[in-house]
C-alpha cells in the first residue's frame, strides 16, 4: 500500500523523464509501424483525387511555427499531391506566419530529387498571395473579390500580372479549398464563411487539439475530409505514398502514448486505493 502512497506523491519530473525517453529513443529506431487509414482522411484524399488536372486549389496556411510539427508534414503532402496531379495551387494565410510556412513547405517539396527537373513554375502552377489581416473578414471579402483582398502576392507583384490569377474572382473559381489550421482564425471560420456562405468545397488538416472541434462538420458534409494531428499526417502520407515526417514521428508518438496510458491507469489505481484507505480511517 505504501507503494501507492509513494506513487501519489511522485515527483512530476519522473514522469517528464519517462515521456522524454519515450519520445527520443524511437527517433533512432528503424521500426515500421502499421498505420490504419481512418474514413475522414480517406475522404480528404479522395477529394483531391477527384479533381481533374488543372483544377484550382486554394490552400490556406493558418498556423505558425509552434504548430509546424503537426501541420507542416500535412502541408508538404498536400502540395506534393497537388503538383503530382497537376493541380494549380493558390496559397494564402490568415496567420501572419502562415505564408512563410508555405514557402518552407515548398522549399522542402522542391528540394527532393523528383522535383529537380519538373519544378512547378511560380505564377503558373502555384502562387503565394501572402497574409492579409482581418481574420474571418478576409474570407468574407474573398467571397466578393479576391483581387481586392489580395491585390499583390507575397513578393509584391500585382496579381494582374500573375497568369494563374487571371479570371479568379471569388470562391466559385476554386475547385477545392484546403485549410491547414491551428486555431483561430481557422477551419471553423472557413466553414462558416467559405463553405456555408459561398458554397466552397473544402477539406482540412488540423492540429489534434482543433480536430474534435471540427469533427461535427464532417457528418453534416460541410467538410469533405479531415486530417487531424500527427496521426492524420501519417495517414495522409501513406495514402499519397510520400513518406515524410508524419510517418517518421508516429513511432515516438505511439511510445509516448503508451507511457501516458500507463501512468493514467496506475495513477487512477493509486488514487482509488489511497482514497479508500483514507475513507476507512475517517469513517
Amino acid at each position, binding site marked *: 500500500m505504501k507503494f501507492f502512497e509513494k506513487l501519489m506523491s511522485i515527483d512530476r519530473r519522473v514522469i517528464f523523464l519517462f*515521456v522524454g525517453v519515450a519520445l527520443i529513443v524511437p527517433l533512432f529506431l528503424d521500426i515500421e509501424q502499421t498505420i490504419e487509414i481512418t474514413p475522414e482522411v480517406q475522404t480528404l484524399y479522395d477529394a483531391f483525387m477527384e479533381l481533374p488536372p488543372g483544377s484550382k486549389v486554394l490552400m490556406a496556411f493558418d498556423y505558425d511555427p509552434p504548430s509546424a510539427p503537426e501541420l507542416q508534414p500535412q502541408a508538404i503532402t498536400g502540395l506534393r499531391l497537388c503538383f503530382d496531379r497537376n493541380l494549380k495551387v493558390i496559397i494564402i494565410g490568415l496567420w501572419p506566419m502562415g505564408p512563410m510556412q508555405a514557402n518552407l513547405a515548398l522549399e522542402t517539396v522542391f528540394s527532393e530529387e523528383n522535383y529537380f527537373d519538373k519544378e512547378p513554375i511560380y505564377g503558373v502552377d502555384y502562387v503565394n498571395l501572402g497574409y492579409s489581416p482581418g481574420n474571418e473578414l478576409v474570407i468574407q471579402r474573398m467571397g466578393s473579390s479576391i483581387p481586392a483582398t489580395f491585390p499583390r502576392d507575397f513578393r509584391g507583384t500585382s496579381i494582374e500580372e500573375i497568369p494563374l490569377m487571371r479570371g479568379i474572382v471569388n470562391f466559385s473559381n476554386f475547385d477545392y479549398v484546403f485549410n491547414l489550421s491551428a486555431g483561430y482564425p481557422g477551419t*471553423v471560420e472557413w466553414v462558416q464563411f467559405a463553405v456555408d456562405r459561398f458554397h466552397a468545397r473544402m477539406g482540412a488538416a488540423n492540429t489534434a487539439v482543433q480536430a474534435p472541434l471540427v469533427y461535427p462538420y464532417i457528418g453534416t458534409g460541410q467538410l469533405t475530409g479531415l486530417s487531424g494531428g*500527427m496521426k492524420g499526417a501519417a495517414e495522409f502520407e501513406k495514402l499519397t505514398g510520400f513518406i515524410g515526417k508524419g510517418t517518421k*514521428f508516429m513511432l515516438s508518438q505511439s511510445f509516448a502514448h503508451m507511457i501516458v496510458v500507463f501512468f493514467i491507469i496506475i495513477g487512477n489505481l493509486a488514487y482509488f486505493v489511497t482514497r479508500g484507505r483514507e475513507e476507512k480511517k475517517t469513517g
Partner: protein
Amino acid sequence: MDSVFSHTIAAILTIGIISFLYKDNPLYKFCESLFIGVSAGYWFVQQYYANLLPKLFDNLGITKLVGAENAPEGALQALFLEGRLDDNLLYLIAGVLGVMMLLRLSPKIGWIARWPLAFTVGSSAGLYFITYFQSNAMSQLEHTILPLNSFNNLVLIVGTVTGIIYFYFSKEHKGVFGGAAKVGIYFLMITFGASFGYTVMSRMSLLIGRIDFLFGTWLGLVK
C-alpha cells in the same frame, strides 16, 4: 555557417525553455524575457507592415504623399488630382476610428474610444450571429434529426438532447430533468476525455518537433 550559428541559438533557447520542466532557473527567465520582448516587437512591426502600411497608408495614398518611392497612388490622389471618388476612400473612416481608439491614452477624452469599440463589437456581433447560427446551430441541428434505428443515432440524439438540458438555466436540476442533465454531463465528460486524448497527441507532437530539431537539425544525429 550562418545556419549553424542560428540553429545553435535556437537550440539554446529551446533547452532554456524546456529546463522549466526541472525547475525555474535563470536561463528560463532569460529565454522568457527574450521571447516576450521579441514577440511584442514582432507584433508591432507585423501590425505596421501588414495593416497600417498596405491597408491604410497605401490605399489612401499617404505613402505617396510623403514622397515614398514606388508608392502606389491612393484614394486621396484620385480625389484631389482626378476628382474621382475611389472605393479606397472608405479606409479614411477606418483610419478615423483607429485614431479615436488611440484617444484612450488621454484620460480627459478617453471616452471617445468607446465609439470605435462599439462599432467593432456591434458589427462583429451581427456577423457572428448569422454565421454561428447557420453553421453551428441550424446545420448541426438538421443533421441530428435521425431515425432511432441504430446505436450511433441513439447516442447522438440522447447526447445532444441531454447536453442541451444541462445548459438549460431556467429550471432547477431536480427529478427527471435533473437526471437528464446528469446524463448530459456524463456525455460532456466522455467528450472531454476524447478531446484530452487528442490534445495529448498534439502536445507530444510539438515536443517531438523540438526534439527532432535538437537531435536532427542541430546535432545531425537523426536523419
